[in-house]
């Protein structure tokens, strides 16, 4: 799909602006970067890493955070105390920084990076799911399910989870964005997924140094991230509506 290999360096064509203002060239639609690599090709290639990392991290964080949040809110007592303690420790202690340090020492790669990013996002899910579960648990329709004799697993699955799912989807959309940006920071530190393949975050980081002279270097990856987040949000909204029979 991309017109050029994303890593092809051409120093003669460096810092070309996008095609439409002079003196841009149609050959490089979105311009080139500081070593003459084609921006469009890099954004298309970057999508692979950024989307894969962002979505996997958000998904992993969502699953872990939601399960913990549901359990904490529903069972209360010691379970809640333990999970709430974990949430507070995570919020108070810079675990992510610690994990990045470990990555830096022992090297990166796709799975370790996704793991670290999920470690950063699960708290978002756990906190909101726990608080919503707490208030849902006291509502009549959940009491009614208890009164009928429905067991805890089915109440969680059929009564509480569907009601918190719209919020999970919304949190997931911005957690994916957060993960894309954090991955950028990791790439910047050289512990990203693969230093040879560009990611949007890494490009944004690089472009920051050229904001004065070559605005397109930071702008286009930024637009790509913004559009992805917007898309994720819209999809979250749509899913939330689809899942609620009252809104159909």
């Amino acid at each position: 799909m991309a017109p050029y290999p994303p890593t092809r360096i051409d120093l003669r064509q460096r810092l070309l602006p996008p095609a439409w203002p002079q003196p841009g060239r149609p050959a490089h639609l979105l311009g080139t970067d500081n070593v003459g690599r084609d921006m469009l090709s890099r954004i298309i290639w970057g999508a692979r890493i950024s989307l894969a990392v962002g979505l996997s991290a958000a998904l992993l964080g969502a699953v872990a955070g939601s399960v913990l949040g549901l359990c904490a809110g529903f069972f209360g007592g010691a379970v809640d105390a333990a999970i709430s303690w974990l949430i507070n420790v995570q919020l108070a202690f810079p675990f992510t920084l610690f994990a990045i340090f470990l990555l830096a020492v022992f090297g990166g790669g796709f799975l370790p990076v996704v793991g670290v990013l999920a470690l950063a996002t699960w708290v978002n899910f756990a906190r909101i799911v726990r608080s919503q579960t707490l208030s849902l648990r006291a509502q009549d329709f959940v009491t009614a399910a208890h009164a009928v004799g429905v067991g805890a697993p089915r109440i969680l699955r059929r009564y509480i989870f569907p009601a918190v799912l719209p919020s999970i989807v919304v949190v997931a959309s911005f957690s994916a964005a957060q993960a894309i940006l954090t991955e950028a920071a990791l790439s910047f530190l050289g512990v990203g997924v693969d230093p040879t393949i560009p990611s949007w975050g890494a490009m944004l980081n690089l472009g920051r140094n050229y904001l004065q002279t070559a605005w397109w270097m930071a702008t286009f990856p930024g637009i790509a991230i913004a559009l992805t987040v917007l898309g994720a949000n819209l999809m979250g909204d749509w899913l939330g509506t689809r899942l609620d029979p009252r809104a159909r």
Partner: protein
Amino acid sequence: MAALSEASGVSVRYGGVAALTDVDFAVSAGETVAIIGESGCGKSTLGRTLLLLQPPTSGTVRFRGEDLTALPARALRQRRRFMQMMFQDPYASLNARMTIGETLAEPLVVHGLATWRTARPRVAQMLARVGLDPGVTSRYPHEFSGGQRQRIAIARAVIAGPDLVVADEPLSALDITVQGQILDLLAALQAAQNLTYVFISHDLPVVRHIAGRVAVMLGGRMVEQGPPAEVFATPAHPYTQALLAAVPIPDPALARARMATAAALPAATPAPPNACPFVPRCPAARPICTESMPPLRDIAAHRRAACWLNEVPA
């Protein structure tokens, strides 16, 4: 006759607040017992405690002679087939994201009486019995009117064949003409399935006509019990009198006359710790009422009351 459901010496505390204090209450099979009182009097808490949806802080709750508080969670869940609940607001008590078919099949499936597939004919039959079109199983609660939703909630409560149904204000969210229809339905189901009702209500005229026995609650305590015809004709507690005096009369001349003559009831304020909870509002309060809570005693055949006026001659 042995009680179907029985609470003895039950207290419930939330944080530091006593919702129920040392309540004794029993229901026999086939009875309709109404619990009345103002909001916050503990009538809903007592209803939920009978089903152990609210575990008591102290005291025992028995169902068919078995101590529910001693049962493990799994066994308790199995007993729920025989003791069910109806709620005030049928919209809040139905899962908005579950179809009517799934909602009604659920009690059968969780108690192993049917599978999702084999439950279908029984769900259709139940819908017809509560006066709904058996073809509505794929619809959701929001597609129905308030009265229809209450019929769905009733169907869910009785489909697994319970003995005891605790109905917590099942009429108060409904229009007056719908209330009558739902009362007819509850009576028909009681006759067909030999149900026992604990009917929690603040509507004294309704209670007067459907209950065989009425229990009056105040401040987390039971203050009067007896057949409604007698209790409402000759209330033995000033609080019951106050409740009766507040029942609106649908007659302009009588209502006007009463409004002009009746003395205003003082605002409810907390009573001293050991006092009768009605002391701050009671027109007949005596020194002893502030010193100790009167016990619930037999005052006549089938009648009990907790008021010093019945104990100590003035």
